[in-house]
């Protein structure tokens, strides 16, 4: 099999040629799929927008007044965060904030928190996670109703010091057998509310992607 023998140049050229073929293959697939992939991620997020509003009335489309915040944005998560501003009769009523809890048990947890202009949570939905089946995956709405306990909570209710799971002396239920996963979600929700509380005016004053064009 030692065809190239002592000739490293021939081996290197063969390797380079095969690498070029492989790179073409990957680049071609990426070209073919990238629009669909971006559309899928957006569709998944938008499917969860209305449920996280908890029945609040709103004008037009929820996606119209979206802003994307590149890091560092002060919200939980290392990647870009998105805020969907919600209006009723032309006035701001709520914001849907997509953030990432980086300290999940099995990787980052993407989540969407709905909060009205008074700072009260309208709903919380998990967008993407890799938590343990049967244990940590109870945070997802199709697995258990765990996430519903956030609805109606705010920064003062419970007080900031009790925005943690029961095992840590807080007011939020855990999941049987899991504390890391709920802890990560509660912390990210709390930090998102703190951000919203401090930046309420800025959030609604920001120019949306559509307006910028």
């Amino acid at each position, binding site marked *: *099999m*030692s*065809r*190239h*023998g002592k000739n*490293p140049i*021939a*081996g*290197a050229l*063969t*390797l380079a*040629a*095969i*690498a070029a073929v*492989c*790179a073409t*293959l*990957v680049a071609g*697939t*990426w070209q*073919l*799929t*990238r629009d*669909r*992939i971006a559309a*899928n*991620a957006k569709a*998944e997020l938008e499917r969860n927008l209305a449920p996280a509003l908890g029945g609040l009335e709103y004008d037009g489309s929820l996606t119209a007044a979206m802003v994307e915040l590149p890091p560092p944005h002060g919200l939980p998560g290392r990647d870009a965060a998105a805020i969907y501003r919600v209006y009723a009769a032309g006035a701001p009523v709520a914001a849907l904030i997509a953030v990432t809890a980086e300290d999940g048990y099995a*990787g980052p947890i993407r989540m969407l928190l709905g909060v009205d202009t008074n700072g009260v949570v309208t709903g919380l939905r998990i967008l*993407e996670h*890799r938590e343990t*089946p*049967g244990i940590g995956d109870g945070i997802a709405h*199709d697995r258990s109703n765990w996430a519903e306990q956030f609805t109606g909570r705010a920064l003062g209710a419970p007080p900031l010091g009790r925005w943690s799971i029961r095992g840590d002396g807080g007011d939020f239920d855990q999941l049987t057998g899991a504390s890391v996963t709920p802890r990560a979600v509660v912390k990210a929700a709390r930090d998102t509310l703190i951000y919203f509380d401090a930046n309420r005016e800025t959030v609604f004053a920001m120019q949306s992607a559509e307006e910028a064009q």
Partner: protein
Amino acid sequence: MDWMTRLKTGLWEDNPGLVQLLGLCPLLAVTTSFVNGLGLGIATLMVLAGSNVLVSAARRFLSDEIRIPVYVLIIASLVTCVELSFKAWFPALDRSLGIFIPLIVTNCAIVARAELFASRNPVGPSLADGIGMGAGFLLLLCAIGAFRELLGTGTILGGLDKLIGGEPLAGIAVVDGGWLLAVLPPGAFFSLALAIALKNVIDRRNRATRATPAPRDAGRVAS
């Protein structure tokens, strides 16, 4: 060797999961439901068939020095292509399989077929070998997935919407509730052990009915 023999080898006699015991990490990790098993099985089959064809086509140019880097290149590229395709056409399935699609790169069943078969045979037989081995792995993933799902959650075909689209489906409820252990890692080991035992029993029966005193062991294990 003709197509049928190659397929039979992969599906039964030399099944990558049951006999060679290769690729056990994904096999044990994702088989919490039939649909997950099917999804990873399809992805693995595509990578295995593709890598066998490409390795076989390039085999005349492969010296010892660059053989392994070329396998890594080809397999990693194909896995990336399959991962992108899943993200584009089966996004829900991609979400539930998570890291295990990129991790197909590390499935030693694939590099084993490249080294043991595709690098020494023409493209046609290599494709047959890839499809046979891939299908053998896929069927085992589906069988263990269905078994664990039924035992663990009491349903059949739960999450089929990830494959065919539409509203989320909980699956057909067969029994109420389930035995959680079956969908946790220990359940994966128990299920695989049962599957291997079942194959050995069937092989022994077959040999006994043929009344040929074949001396070879049923449970041949490769490293």
